[in-house]
Protein backbone atom coordinates (compact mmCIF):
# COMPACT_ATOMS: atom_id res chain seq x y z
CA UNK A 1 0.00 0.00 0.00
CA UNK A 2 1.24 3.50 -0.79
CA UNK A 3 -0.15 6.95 -0.11
CA UNK A 4 -2.68 8.36 2.29
CA UNK A 5 -6.40 8.70 2.11
CA UNK A 6 -9.22 6.44 1.03
CA UNK A 7 -8.15 2.96 0.01
CA UNK A 8 -8.01 2.42 -3.74
CA UNK A 9 -7.53 -1.15 -4.93
CA UNK A 10 -5.95 -1.20 -8.39
CA UNK A 11 -5.80 -4.32 -10.55
CA UNK A 12 -3.09 -3.62 -13.09
CA UNK A 13 -0.98 -5.39 -15.69
CA UNK A 14 2.69 -4.36 -15.79
CA UNK A 15 2.81 -5.13 -19.51
CA UNK A 16 -0.24 -3.03 -20.35
CA UNK A 17 0.15 0.36 -22.07
CA UNK A 18 -3.22 1.59 -20.74
CA UNK A 19 -2.07 0.84 -17.20
CA UNK A 20 1.20 2.69 -17.80
CA UNK A 21 -0.74 5.71 -19.04
CA UNK A 22 -3.18 5.52 -16.12
CA UNK A 23 -0.55 4.89 -13.44
CA UNK A 24 0.62 8.52 -13.24
CA UNK A 25 -2.96 9.69 -12.74
CA UNK A 26 -3.56 6.99 -10.12
CA UNK A 27 -0.42 8.04 -8.23
CA UNK A 28 -1.55 11.66 -8.16
CA UNK A 29 -4.75 10.76 -6.34
CA UNK A 30 -5.06 11.35 -2.63
CA UNK A 31 -5.49 7.68 -1.84
CA UNK A 32 -3.88 4.66 -0.25
CA UNK A 33 -3.15 2.64 -3.36
CA UNK A 34 -3.25 -1.15 -3.05
CA UNK A 35 -1.65 -2.76 -6.10
CA UNK A 36 -3.06 -6.12 -7.18
CA UNK A 37 -1.30 -8.13 -9.87
CA UNK A 38 -3.41 -8.77 -12.97
CA UNK A 39 -1.08 -9.96 -15.76
CA UNK A 40 -2.94 -10.84 -18.96
CA UNK A 41 -0.27 -13.13 -20.33
CA UNK A 42 -1.91 -13.91 -23.66
CA UNK A 43 -1.86 -10.20 -24.56
CA UNK A 44 1.37 -9.26 -22.79
CA UNK A 45 3.72 -12.26 -22.74
CA UNK A 46 6.36 -10.38 -20.71
CA UNK A 47 3.89 -9.48 -17.96
CA UNK A 48 4.46 -12.50 -15.67
CA UNK A 49 8.20 -11.75 -15.50
CA UNK A 50 7.52 -8.10 -14.70
CA UNK A 51 5.03 -8.91 -11.95
CA UNK A 52 7.47 -11.42 -10.47
CA UNK A 53 10.20 -8.74 -10.55
CA UNK A 54 7.95 -6.25 -8.75
CA UNK A 55 7.02 -8.82 -6.15
CA UNK A 56 10.69 -9.79 -5.69
CA UNK A 57 11.63 -6.11 -5.28
CA UNK A 58 8.81 -5.86 -2.76
CA UNK A 59 10.46 -8.56 -0.67
CA UNK A 60 13.30 -6.08 -0.21
CA UNK A 61 10.99 -3.13 0.40
CA UNK A 62 11.09 -1.65 -3.12
CA UNK A 63 7.81 -2.78 -4.66
CA UNK A 64 6.43 0.57 -5.75
CA UNK A 65 9.82 1.80 -6.96
CA UNK A 66 9.91 -1.18 -9.33
CA UNK A 67 6.32 -0.66 -10.47
CA UNK A 68 6.89 3.07 -11.10
CA UNK A 69 10.05 2.34 -13.02
CA UNK A 70 8.52 -0.41 -15.17
CA UNK A 71 5.64 1.85 -16.15
CA UNK A 72 7.92 4.84 -16.75
CA UNK A 73 10.25 3.00 -19.13
CA UNK A 74 8.25 0.36 -20.96
CA UNK A 75 10.88 -0.13 -23.66
CA UNK A 76 13.42 -1.53 -21.19
CA UNK A 77 11.91 -4.59 -19.59
CA UNK A 78 14.29 -7.42 -20.48
CA UNK A 79 16.27 -9.23 -17.80
CA UNK A 80 19.38 -6.96 -17.99
CA UNK A 81 17.08 -3.96 -17.53
CA UNK A 82 15.53 -5.58 -14.47
CA UNK A 83 19.02 -6.20 -13.03
CA UNK A 84 19.92 -2.55 -13.66
CA UNK A 85 16.84 -1.46 -11.77
CA UNK A 86 17.57 -3.87 -8.91
CA UNK A 87 21.07 -2.42 -8.58
CA UNK A 88 19.76 1.13 -8.75
CA UNK A 89 17.31 0.41 -5.93
CA UNK A 90 20.10 -1.11 -3.83
CA UNK A 91 18.64 -4.60 -3.88
CA UNK A 92 20.59 -7.76 -3.14
CA UNK A 93 20.76 -9.00 -6.73
CA UNK A 94 21.19 -12.70 -5.90
CA UNK A 95 18.16 -12.60 -3.63
CA UNK A 96 16.19 -10.64 -6.23
CA UNK A 97 17.02 -13.27 -8.86
CA UNK A 98 16.04 -16.15 -6.59
CA UNK A 99 12.85 -14.45 -5.43
CA UNK A 100 11.55 -13.53 -8.85
CA UNK A 101 11.78 -17.15 -9.93
CA UNK A 102 10.32 -18.55 -6.71
CA UNK A 103 7.10 -20.56 -6.81
CA UNK A 104 5.69 -18.54 -3.89
CA UNK A 105 6.08 -15.34 -5.90
CA UNK A 106 4.28 -16.84 -8.91
CA UNK A 107 1.58 -18.13 -6.55
CA UNK A 108 1.16 -14.69 -4.99
CA UNK A 109 0.74 -13.09 -8.42
CA UNK A 110 -1.79 -15.78 -9.42
CA UNK A 111 -3.75 -15.29 -6.18
CA UNK A 112 -4.10 -11.60 -6.95
CA UNK A 113 -5.16 -12.40 -10.53
CA UNK A 114 -7.80 -14.86 -9.35
CA UNK A 115 -9.14 -12.38 -6.81
CA UNK A 116 -9.52 -9.95 -9.72
CA UNK A 117 -11.42 -12.52 -11.75
CA UNK A 118 -13.70 -13.10 -8.76
CA UNK A 119 -14.19 -9.35 -8.43
CA UNK A 120 -15.28 -9.22 -12.08
CA UNK A 121 -12.22 -7.49 -13.54
CA UNK A 122 -12.63 -7.42 -17.33
CA UNK A 123 -9.78 -5.12 -18.32
CA UNK A 124 -6.93 -3.13 -16.85
CA UNK A 125 -6.45 -0.90 -15.03
CA UNK A 126 -9.49 -1.69 -12.87
CA UNK A 127 -10.06 0.27 -9.67
CA UNK A 128 -12.21 -0.34 -6.63
CA UNK A 129 -12.83 1.62 -3.45
CA UNK A 130 -13.92 -0.75 -0.71
CA UNK A 131 -15.91 1.88 1.21
Amino acid sequence: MRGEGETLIVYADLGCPHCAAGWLEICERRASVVFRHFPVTSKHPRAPALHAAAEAAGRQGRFFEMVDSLYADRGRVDDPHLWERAERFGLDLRRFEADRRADEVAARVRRDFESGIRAGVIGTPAMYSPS
Partner: protein
Amino acid sequence: MIAAGEPAPDFTLRDQDGEKVSLSDYLGRRVLLVFYPQDFSPVCSDQLSIYQEVKPEIEARGVELIGISVDHPWAHKAFQEKIGTDTRLLSDFEPKGEVARAYGAYIERVGHANRSLVLVDAEGAVEWVHESPTPLEIPGANLIFDALETVGSDA
Protein backbone atom coordinates in the same frame (compact mmCIF):
# COMPACT_ATOMS: atom_id res chain seq x y z
CA MET B 1 -32.43 -15.21 -26.42
CA ILE B 2 -32.58 -18.97 -25.98
CA ALA B 3 -33.38 -20.09 -22.42
CA ALA B 4 -32.07 -22.71 -20.01
CA GLY B 5 -33.79 -26.07 -20.50
CA GLU B 6 -34.27 -25.67 -24.26
CA PRO B 7 -32.37 -27.90 -26.68
CA ALA B 8 -29.31 -26.11 -28.04
CA PRO B 9 -29.73 -25.76 -31.83
CA ASP B 10 -27.13 -27.87 -33.59
CA PHE B 11 -24.89 -26.21 -36.15
CA THR B 12 -21.90 -26.83 -38.34
CA LEU B 13 -19.40 -24.01 -38.82
CA ARG B 14 -15.76 -23.73 -39.84
CA ASP B 15 -13.15 -22.90 -37.23
CA GLN B 16 -10.03 -20.73 -37.57
CA ASP B 17 -8.28 -23.56 -39.43
CA GLY B 18 -11.14 -24.14 -41.84
CA GLU B 19 -12.15 -27.34 -40.08
CA LYS B 20 -15.88 -28.11 -39.91
CA VAL B 21 -17.16 -28.25 -36.35
CA SER B 22 -20.63 -29.26 -35.21
CA LEU B 23 -22.10 -28.73 -31.79
CA SER B 24 -23.13 -32.38 -31.89
CA ASP B 25 -19.42 -33.31 -32.04
CA TYR B 26 -19.35 -32.26 -28.39
CA LEU B 27 -22.17 -34.53 -27.17
CA GLY B 28 -20.96 -36.08 -23.93
CA ARG B 29 -19.08 -32.90 -22.97
CA ARG B 30 -20.20 -29.53 -21.68
CA VAL B 31 -19.54 -26.56 -23.92
CA LEU B 32 -19.56 -22.83 -23.25
CA LEU B 33 -20.47 -20.93 -26.43
CA VAL B 34 -19.13 -17.38 -26.33
CA PHE B 35 -20.95 -15.23 -28.90
CA TYR B 36 -19.03 -12.00 -29.44
CA PRO B 37 -19.38 -9.10 -31.92
CA GLN B 38 -16.16 -8.89 -33.93
CA ASP B 39 -12.57 -10.04 -34.12
CA PHE B 40 -10.03 -7.30 -33.33
CA SER B 41 -12.44 -4.92 -31.62
CA PRO B 42 -10.86 -3.65 -28.38
CA VAL B 43 -13.68 -4.96 -26.19
CA CYS B 44 -13.71 -8.41 -27.81
CA SER B 45 -9.92 -8.58 -27.52
CA ASP B 46 -10.14 -7.86 -23.79
CA GLN B 47 -12.91 -10.39 -23.30
CA LEU B 48 -11.21 -13.27 -25.09
CA SER B 49 -7.83 -12.45 -23.52
CA ILE B 50 -9.28 -12.62 -20.02
CA TYR B 51 -11.10 -15.87 -20.82
CA GLN B 52 -7.86 -17.30 -22.19
CA GLU B 53 -6.21 -16.68 -18.81
CA VAL B 54 -8.83 -18.77 -17.00
CA LYS B 55 -9.38 -21.35 -19.76
CA PRO B 56 -7.45 -24.07 -17.86
CA GLU B 57 -9.72 -23.58 -14.83
CA ILE B 58 -12.83 -23.72 -17.04
CA GLU B 59 -11.56 -26.88 -18.76
CA ALA B 60 -10.69 -28.40 -15.38
CA ARG B 61 -14.43 -28.23 -14.66
CA GLY B 62 -15.08 -30.32 -17.78
CA VAL B 63 -16.19 -27.43 -19.98
CA GLU B 64 -14.93 -26.68 -23.50
CA LEU B 65 -14.73 -22.98 -24.42
CA ILE B 66 -15.74 -21.99 -27.99
CA GLY B 67 -15.95 -18.49 -29.48
CA ILE B 68 -18.42 -17.61 -32.28
CA SER B 69 -18.61 -14.44 -34.35
CA VAL B 70 -19.59 -13.45 -37.89
CA ASP B 71 -15.94 -13.17 -38.96
CA HIS B 72 -14.30 -15.33 -41.63
CA PRO B 73 -11.98 -18.19 -40.59
CA TRP B 74 -8.96 -16.26 -41.89
CA ALA B 75 -9.86 -13.32 -39.67
CA HIS B 76 -10.26 -15.72 -36.74
CA LYS B 77 -6.81 -17.16 -37.42
CA ALA B 78 -5.20 -13.71 -37.43
CA PHE B 79 -7.17 -12.66 -34.35
CA GLN B 80 -6.06 -15.76 -32.46
CA GLU B 81 -2.45 -14.95 -33.26
CA LYS B 82 -2.86 -11.27 -32.35
CA ILE B 83 -4.27 -11.85 -28.88
CA GLY B 84 -2.39 -15.07 -28.17
CA THR B 85 -5.42 -17.28 -27.63
CA ASP B 86 -5.87 -20.93 -28.51
CA THR B 87 -9.62 -20.86 -27.93
CA ARG B 88 -11.40 -22.42 -30.91
CA LEU B 89 -13.17 -19.67 -32.88
CA LEU B 90 -16.09 -20.55 -35.16
CA SER B 91 -17.08 -18.58 -38.21
CA ASP B 92 -20.79 -17.68 -38.40
CA PHE B 93 -19.97 -16.04 -41.72
CA GLU B 94 -22.31 -17.32 -44.43
CA PRO B 95 -25.27 -17.20 -44.13
CA LYS B 96 -24.16 -14.34 -41.93
CA GLY B 97 -25.13 -14.73 -38.27
CA GLU B 98 -27.36 -17.76 -38.86
CA VAL B 99 -26.23 -19.54 -35.70
CA ALA B 100 -26.34 -16.39 -33.55
CA ARG B 101 -29.90 -15.88 -34.86
CA ALA B 102 -30.87 -19.46 -33.90
CA TYR B 103 -29.75 -18.70 -30.34
CA GLY B 104 -31.44 -15.29 -30.30
CA ALA B 105 -28.08 -13.60 -29.93
CA TYR B 106 -28.02 -11.67 -33.22
CA ILE B 107 -28.53 -7.90 -33.40
CA GLU B 108 -30.00 -7.23 -36.86
CA ARG B 109 -29.44 -3.47 -36.96
CA VAL B 110 -25.68 -3.76 -36.37
CA GLY B 111 -25.08 -7.05 -38.17
CA HIS B 112 -23.31 -9.00 -35.45
CA ALA B 113 -23.98 -11.01 -32.32
CA ASN B 114 -24.56 -9.52 -28.91
CA ARG B 115 -22.06 -10.53 -26.26
CA SER B 116 -23.75 -13.68 -24.98
CA LEU B 117 -22.72 -16.84 -23.14
CA VAL B 118 -24.53 -20.16 -23.55
CA LEU B 119 -23.58 -23.17 -21.45
CA VAL B 120 -24.62 -26.43 -23.14
CA ASP B 121 -24.75 -29.65 -21.14
CA ALA B 122 -23.41 -33.05 -22.18
CA GLU B 123 -26.80 -34.02 -23.67
CA GLY B 124 -27.04 -30.91 -25.83
CA ALA B 125 -29.48 -28.88 -23.74
CA VAL B 126 -28.97 -25.28 -22.67
CA GLU B 127 -27.96 -25.14 -18.99
CA TRP B 128 -27.36 -21.44 -18.47
CA VAL B 129 -27.44 -18.24 -20.50
CA HIS B 130 -26.06 -14.76 -20.01
CA GLU B 131 -26.83 -11.91 -22.38
CA SER B 132 -25.01 -8.61 -21.96
CA PRO B 133 -27.19 -5.50 -21.74
CA THR B 134 -25.12 -4.06 -24.61
CA PRO B 135 -22.28 -5.41 -26.79
CA LEU B 136 -19.98 -2.94 -25.02
CA GLU B 137 -20.34 -4.77 -21.72
CA ILE B 138 -18.04 -7.74 -21.13
CA PRO B 139 -19.42 -10.58 -19.02
CA GLY B 140 -16.71 -11.07 -16.39
CA ALA B 141 -15.24 -14.54 -16.06
CA ASN B 142 -16.65 -14.53 -12.52
CA LEU B 143 -20.10 -15.05 -14.07
CA ILE B 144 -18.86 -18.21 -15.74
CA PHE B 145 -17.45 -19.61 -12.51
CA ASP B 146 -20.57 -18.64 -10.58
CA ALA B 147 -22.68 -20.46 -13.18
CA LEU B 148 -20.47 -23.55 -13.08
CA GLU B 149 -20.87 -23.68 -9.31
CA THR B 150 -24.62 -23.34 -9.35
CA VAL B 151 -25.89 -25.25 -12.39
CA GLY B 152 -25.49 -28.84 -13.52
CA SER B 153 -22.56 -30.97 -12.45
CA ASP B 154 -18.84 -30.32 -12.57
CA ALA B 155 -18.24 -33.75 -14.04
